[in-house]
């Protein structure tokens, strides 16, 4: 009734504000994308062009830089390393996380609340604090330079956030479903696999996306654990490339923008999941 008489946007009263809003939006978007556009666009110029006029348009368009990077074996090695690390981290986080969250959410057992507290306490231990001892530990294990030296610590450090997000999800599945499944002869594991997992799909996707994002962008851990370019992930590789070929500005720009692409494609689509995950902790 009220909504019929008062337009929700207040459009009739605040029309004058619309141009201002668009102006602000335009400025924010311009400032936001300018650096990205700069890097991508200047990857299409030669270093000579860039030196002549640092903020010009590609004339003519040069494809060699991008072709060079795409033909660079190191780029693909690092791309593959990043992919392996991110996929393995995501799988590890989701599988181990959902198993632990399942029992915490749906079982009564001695030590349950202690277990949950232990996992949530992990939010207080940032990776930065642990990274030097991790380095010495993994060196002792002979794992430096091995992708596992990044994957396993990443899984461990994602566990707290994962369990905090998943426990409420798994708990919200009504107990009646469990009873019904039990009456129909499903074991508790059968209930977990056939009912709980499918129903908690959105939560699993959120957790997985956050794990993937974090892993794909990670720098400190791969920097310390992986060492040389051939075993590095993309963020470390980009940094190596920019140092090694600092004279080849155009090449560095092309390498940088190609390193952006997978993140941009994947994460733009996953935006809602990431935000959902970050705000999920508030809604509890």
């Amino acid at each position: 009734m009220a909504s019929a008489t008062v337009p929700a946007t207040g459009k009739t009263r605040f029309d004058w504000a619309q141009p201002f809003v668009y102006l602000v939006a335009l400025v924010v978007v311009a400032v936001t994308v300018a650096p990205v556009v700069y890097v991508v666009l200047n990857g299409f110029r030669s270093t000579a062009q860039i030196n002549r006029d640092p903020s010009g348009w590609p004339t003519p368009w040069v494809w060699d830089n991008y072709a060079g990077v795409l033909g660079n074996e190191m780029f693909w090695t690092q791309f593959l390393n990043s992919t392996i690390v991110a996929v393995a981290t995501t799988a590890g986080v989701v599988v181990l996380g959902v198993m632990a969250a399942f029992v915490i959410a749906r079982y009564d057992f001695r030590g349950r609340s202690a277990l949950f507290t232990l996992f949530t306490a992990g939010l207080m231990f940032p990776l930065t604090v642990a990274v030097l001892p991790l380095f010495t530990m993994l060196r002792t294990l002979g794992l430096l330079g091995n992708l596992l030296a990044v994957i396993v610590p990443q899984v461990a450090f994602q566990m707290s956030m994962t369990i905090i997000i998943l426990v409420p999800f798994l708990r919200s599945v009504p107990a009646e479903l469990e009873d019904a499944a039990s009456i129909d002869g499903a074991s508790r594991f059968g209930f977990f696999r056939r009912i709980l997992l499918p129903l908690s799909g959105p939560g699993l996707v959120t957790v997985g996306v956050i794990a993937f994002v974090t892993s794909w962008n990670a720098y400190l851990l791969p920097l310390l654990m992986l060492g040389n370019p051939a075993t590095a992930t993309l963020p470390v590789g980009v940094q190596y490339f920019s140092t090694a070929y600092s004279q080849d500005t155009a090449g560095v720009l092309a390498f940088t923008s190609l390193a952006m692409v997978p993140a941009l494609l994947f994460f733009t689509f996953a935006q809602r999941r990431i935000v959902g995950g970050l705000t999920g902790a508030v809604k509890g």
Partner: protein
Amino acid sequence: MAAPEVTAGRVQVARPAPAAPPRRRRRPLRDTALVWGFAAPALVVYIGFVILPVVLAAVFSFFNWNGLGPLDRFIGLDNYVRAFSDPVFLGALRNNITIVVLSLVIQGPLAIGIALLLNRRLRGRTLIRTLIFVPYVLSEVVAGLAFRLMLPPGGPFDTFLTSLGWTGTKPQWLADPDVAFWTLFAVLTWKYLGLAIILMLAGLQGIPEELHEAAALDGASWWQTQLRITIPLLGPTVRIWAFLSIIGSLQLFDMVWILTGGGPLNATQTMATYMVDIGNGRSQIGFGSAVAVILFFVSLVIALIYQRAVLRRDMAGAVTRGG
């Protein structure tokens, strides 16, 4: 039965099970095995690679140790004394705190303001929101590199400023110790403002439209509605954003390492860059661990104070429910 309609037949709950006697729900012995069987993998990885290294950091911090050789030169609190008497570390600590405060004071209001504007009905709102989110999804390395390429003296950014009419000499954005810290903060704002805006927008979506209508009916102006209704109701979102921002600012490493490496003249050093520099670069694992422990306690104290004072109500559901 609710299951089939929820899961659209993917889960065949209703499938008749041949000889299935109704079972009792508590089966203690088997359940205990299942519980710990399920929890064990996560627990082992978590204890081995989160708890253990943190404990080791605390232990190492009492030793003079280069990371190799035997751990036998116990020096008590000397590493901590050394950290707190090193002007470079104190500068790094001050930089961290400054970034925490500046982020809250500048990025917060900016994000709320922009989110309020963008929450109106706009053409292309989805596109705008997606674009605003772009910096957040880039790694700090890639973003930092992009800015490093744009900011050299006489580089594209300077040329752009000249074309805007600033013909004079530009500051050395990354090389001047008096300027570099502000450049760093500007780049961080670029990187994280989008996330703040998106979070605020998500929070705004949760505020019922009816409240605005009621306020409008009562004759409130748009500004009054925002100030009296929207912003107070945005409280939980602002508080969780502030928490993420504080923790992130205290851990800051990647962007600084790429952009300035902590320089020039340690002007942009943070606790984390200082720690990696001495721990990894100079193999002083003992001293580096002491810095890590200090970093941990600074984060912990701030987090606890914040949680006690501000967050308790919001987080109540998430953190305490399992207990």
